[in-house]
């Protein structure tokens, strides 16, 4: 009988679990939290985050165009951007959590302890997630100042907290999963950033997701879907009941990534193993996908073809406008009326009256009419023979310059494989002279004060840590 067979007889009786005062996940979480925050990494990221938010608030307030965005939209935009940055930070910390330890050769000593692998994962995950509550608290003053007393603040804070928590949980989980399977931090970062970019691009370009397929893509993209939900609920006064399904993908991402982490977590190893090669290939595939997506989005923005225009038919509708030119200051508004008349012999098809603004300077800077007017289009069901309809329009002069405003009547094509001929009105020549507001809404103290406050906190933490070390370590 071999030595091994001899000792096996008594082996099992010797196995007993030592009583640990604190669970391993808590010890790992506390240690990681200290490393992350006292070590300075989280504070540095939070500082950059606060500077970014401060910059955004400053731009929203001082930029003559953006400063005219209504509070509801400004709050939504700030919340969206704050969440996007927090998700990015969560993803990056998650992506570093395991592969970074592999690179720094500190994972082995942790794996050599009797601590359960799954508990190590849980501790690290919670520490990585800790960035979100801090990021959210920092965003609150910025949201407050942009709301300017608007009632949107309360729902924005509530839904920002809920959706942000779900999204950051999901993104941190994804980052950790990538890190789990990555043999090096470089691969982990590359894949994580690829995933982030892949989901961010469509989320930031919602206008491109037209049609059922586009809507579906937007719905399954957690970031885009949450943005859509927040936009409808906070900006467009739509109820939660109408749009709650748009939160499905973010909840699925959060729950799914956490479950996968817990399932695979027990197999945490020193080396990512054979899967890492597959993972590296996946990373390259994601990188290629990002580039392809960007090209597709760019190509979808190309103008319609001449062939489509050639098949147009001329409708009997006419449009007139009651203004020829106007000079105003940036920030002022102008009002004018348009009248559409059916001069045909039959009732008109349904049509849209749309406003366009063109910059007349040599650079040909693009103007987004949505920023200039809340009434971009008007829809008309039918117009009887000889009947007229009048619309009143408001335009906010956002940027100084020389512009032409004109209206277009767009008859609805009669069938799917037909088109129609737009009818343009005479233009309004609009001259906008400069005007700059100073420190609107008391934004400056927040924009500058928050990063300075964080710097002071960092200084105090470092000083406290030094004192602690001088006084005896732990």
């Amino acid at each position, binding site marked *: 009988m071999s*030595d091994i067979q001899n000792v096996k007889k*008594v082996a099992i009786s010797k196995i007993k679990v030592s009583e640990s005062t604190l669970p391993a996940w808590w010890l790992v979480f506390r240690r990681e939290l200290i490393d992350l925050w006292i070590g300075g990494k989280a504070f540095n990221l939070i500082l950059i985050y606060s500077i970014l938010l401060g910059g955004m608030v400053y731009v929203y307030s001082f930029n003559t165009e953006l400063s005219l965005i209504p509070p509801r939209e400004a709050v939504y935009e700030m919340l969206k951007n704050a969440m996007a940055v927090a998700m990015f930070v969560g993803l990056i910390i998650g992506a570093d959590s395991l592969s970074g330890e592999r690179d720094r050769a500190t994972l082995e000593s942790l794996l050599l302890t009797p601590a359960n692998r799954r508990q190590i994962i849980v501790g690290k995950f919670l520490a990585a997630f800790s960035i979100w509550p801090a990021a959210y608290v920092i965003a609150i003053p910025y949201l407050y100042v942009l709301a300017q007393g608007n009632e949107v603040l309360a729902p924005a804070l509530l839904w920002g907290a809920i959706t942000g928590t779900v999204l950051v949980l999901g993104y941190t989980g994804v980052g950790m999963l990538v890190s789990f399977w990555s043999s090096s931090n470089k691969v982990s970062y590359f894949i994580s950033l690829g995933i982030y970019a892949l989901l961010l691009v469509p989320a930031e370009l919602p206008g491109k997701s037209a049609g059922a397929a586009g809507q579906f893509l937007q719905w399954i993209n957690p970031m885009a879907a949450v943005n859509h939900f927040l936009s409808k609920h906070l900006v467009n006064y739509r109820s939660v009941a109408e749009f709650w399904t748009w939160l499905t993908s973010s909840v699925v991402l959060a729950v799914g990534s956490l479950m996968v982490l817990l399932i695979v977590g027990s197999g945490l190893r020193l080396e990512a193993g054979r899967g890492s090669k597959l993972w590296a290939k996946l990373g390259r595939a994601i990188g290629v996908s990002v580039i392809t997506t960007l090209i597709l989005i760019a190509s979808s923005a190309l103008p319609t073809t001449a062939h489509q225009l050639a098949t147009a038919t001329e409708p009997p509708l006419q449009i007139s406008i009651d203004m020829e030119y106007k000079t105003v200051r940036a920030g002022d508004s102008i009002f004018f009326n348009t009248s559409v008349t059916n001069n045909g012999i039959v009732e008109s098809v349904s049509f849209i009256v749309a406003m366009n603004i063109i910059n007349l300077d040599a650079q040909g800077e693009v103007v987004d009419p949505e920023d200039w007017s809340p009434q971009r289009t008007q829809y008309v069901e039918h117009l009887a023979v000889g009947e007229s309809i009048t619309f009143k329009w408001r335009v906010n002069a956002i940027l100084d310059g020389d512009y032409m405003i004109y209206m277009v009547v767009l008859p609805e094509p009669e069938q799917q494989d037909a088109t129609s001929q737009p009818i343009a009105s005479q233009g309004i020549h609009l001259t906008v002279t400069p005007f700059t507001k100073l420190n609107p809404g008391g934004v400056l103290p927040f924009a500058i004060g928050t990063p300075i406050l964080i710097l002071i906190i960092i200084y105090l933490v470092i000083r406290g840590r030094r004192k602690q070390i001088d006084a005896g370590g*732990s």
Partner: protein
Amino acid sequence: MPKRKTSLDSNSYPEILVAENLCKSYGPRQALQGLTFSLKAGRVLGFLGPNGAGKTTSIRILTTIMEPEAGHFVIDGIPSEHPEEIRRRIGVLPENLGFPRQMTGIEYLTYYGQLYGRTASQARQNGLKLLEDVGLQQRGRSLIGSYSHGMRQRIGIARALVNDPVVVFLDEPTLGLDPRGQQELLDLIQRIAHERNAGVVLCSHLLSEVEGVCDDVVILNLGRIVARGSVGEVIGRGQQNIILQNTLRVQVPSASVTKARQVLKETPNIMKVTLIGEMEGWLQIELINATNGNAEKDIQMNNKILGALIRAKIPILGFEIEGSRLQDVFLHLTEEVIK
């Protein structure tokens, strides 16, 4: 250092580590081919082999970081099917261990002590004791980021001892240390084995240090054990297997070198005498192979040479037979297998 109370009856189960037929491969390359050896409490086992011999793979398997494809091992009576329990009984200083730069030495040891189930105060007390044991009591409250390489090796060894392990694995612990640092660490390793009654597995490329510190050695090459036993046994077997007694080395005072060379030229069965260390007075003596590997005749031949020098009143400061050192055996054994 506290002496550990062994839970096993030392007569019934004298071996605290038993490995049988461990195998591991990386793709087509066989990293380990049937590794079998054992270690007793209180002894230091030198784990030797050239690069790629399978040392680190063996250590990773025995420390439960990696699973073997075949074979089995038992540590302190716990079979390898219970890795968490084995981890409670071993201490490891891996090669190229990374350290958290923002932690102090005592924080580091307290943290790991807690992970092994100690309360915070117990872990801290134990950590302070370990810092003292490894000679870092003055720097325990400094950030590890400010430690020298030698200090990091010491704190790494202290970390390996936080759970009062039965077996301690040290992978190249003296790598990159100056001679004084090396010696201090080797003394520490001996104290771990003798005062704690722990078994120590020491991986090293420095064969002179292994020879000085280890009780037993295992020499690996290309994933196989090519020699195993006590240091004396391995050297003895090496000498039997290879005829190396054709060359001797004698150290005499530098002032007597010329006279010694003259005496040796007149001594029978000497083919060539070469001065190999002018300052130190080392002479290399190549013999005519007249004994055909007969050990007794070899000894007589050596005595004749020494006798001739003594009769000429030349002081002998040192005497060495080539092949009598572990390094000679190691080079020979590993070279043979590669061929």
